[in-house]
């Protein structure tokens, strides 16, 4: 009874919370602009690039081998397994190449859910999900990737800034 009255009169609980807040406040203040390694968790993202885990699932990308040939052989496994049907492949032949060659490899990113089932199903390691995550765009054409095309091609990481505000000027 007396203890509970004491607790009501003297705000121990508020003191505890203030102490915790003060502890972190002081920690940040000590580290700010002192050149020491920061222990707080805020990442200054657009200025400082983020680190991604090796398995990060970004945008779909076609892989070329050492000779610069597309590794895809059009077995359509990725097209079949894709839950949202974002991949369209057209099979074709190319001179001097034994395996089939994709005439067309369309990837509709606006519906892609980045589940990596396509990469899992591919037996030739001809596609990966790369580490690109800045994928916002201004119109729907920005999300439609094909083998040809200036920005949205399937082979390279899209130039940084194309999707972001920096491409305004």
């Amino acid at each position, binding site marked *: 009874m007396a203890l509970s009255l004491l607790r009501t009169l003297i705000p121990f609980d508020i003191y505890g919370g203030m102490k915790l807040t003060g502890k972190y406040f002081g920690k940040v203040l000590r580290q700010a602009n002192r050149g020491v390694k920061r222990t707080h*968790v805020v990442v200054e993202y657009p200025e400082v690039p983020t680190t991604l885990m090796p398995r990060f699932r970004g945008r779909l990308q076609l892989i070329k081998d050492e000779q610069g040939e597309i590794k895809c052989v059009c077995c359509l496994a990725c097209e079949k397994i894709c839950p949202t049907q974002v991949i369209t492949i057209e099979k074709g032949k190319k001179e001097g190449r034994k395996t089939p060659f994709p005439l067309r490899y369309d990837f509709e990113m606006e519906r892609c859910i980045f589940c990596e089932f396509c990469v899992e199903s591919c037996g030739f390691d001809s596609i990966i999900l790369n580490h690109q995550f800045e994928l916002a765009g201004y119109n729907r054409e920005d999300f439609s990737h094909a083998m040809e095309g200036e920005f949205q091609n399937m082979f390279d990481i899209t130039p940084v800034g194309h999707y972001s505000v920096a491409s305004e000027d």
Partner: protein
Amino acid sequence: MFKTEEMEINLGPQHPSTHGVLRVKLHLDGETVVRCVPMIGYLHRGVEKICENKTFFQGQVWTDRTDYVASVSNNLGWAEGVEKLFGITVPRRAHYIRTMLTELNRITSHLLWLGTHALDIGAMTVFLYAFREREEILSIFEAFCGARLTTTAFRIGGLREDIPPGFEKQVRAFQARFLDCIDEYEILLTENRIWKKRTIGVAMLNAEDAIALGVTGPVLRAAGSAYDIRKAFPYAAYGEMDFDVATQPAGDTYARYLVRLEEMRQAHRIVNQCLDGLPEGPVMAKLPKVLKSEVNEIYHAIEAPKGELGYYFIGEKGGVNPYRMHIRAPSFINLQALSKMVEGRLLADVIAAIGTLDVVLGEVDR
């Protein structure tokens, strides 16, 4: 002398404290709630219909998107349900890794609940601390499967890949400091006089009503019933784990808060046991390339962070997709109890009640 009249107001669907698109129709007498009718369906996407038209393999991606703060739990329910339907035996190592990730997911879900629930009630600071740890667990998910929220973590028959190098170190680093973090939340809330005033005796639900209404998970355990599917019907590697079921007798919002904090501690214990006892061996069962079901009907339930998450499957002979798939969503069933909890109470308590039920509208509406 004065004319009194009942007033009908709508809480939501675009109200920040309804955690999504929940609309609650409230009949008020002054500030007292006379009648409360939750209106749902704003996020209905027909997940069950879609999954019936997708293969067993593809369907998993839709489970990520029902309860999107606990997608690993949903993946586990789907994978284990399909495995039960087909009669697949999963390697022990895969079970351990699944258990570990599911428990980490329980922590993220409870942390998100803690942050937003406290924010609803008026305690802003906890939100920042809770999200600090949640961020770390999401990085662990990213290291394991490449995505932070829509994980698609498991495969039918096991895992796609073993844990990556450096994963154990990352989890152990998190484990080493997480118990101190829970203590910090307790410093901020448990003895806080405002928190106690807003939660003790609010949104009461006793065990009898909870069971009758089908309420499961922390809400049921906070009413004194120790029903936990991990103990009652062990799945994955929970049969080999040593942990306690957190219960509280009171059945109010404060009791649910204590139960969820204790569950985070128990999840921490289970993750440690999984790391210590991680068996060697393969992570994927040997399966035919094309899975074709026989006529079978199963109901597989797991203990998701929100309660009993059940998957009901019917397979047809030679079928590559489920003939019928149904999700017993814990949020959907738990939300039924909202009327029972708030009728006759004050309007401000409705916010606390919605928060304490921990509903995710993606799962309620499916």
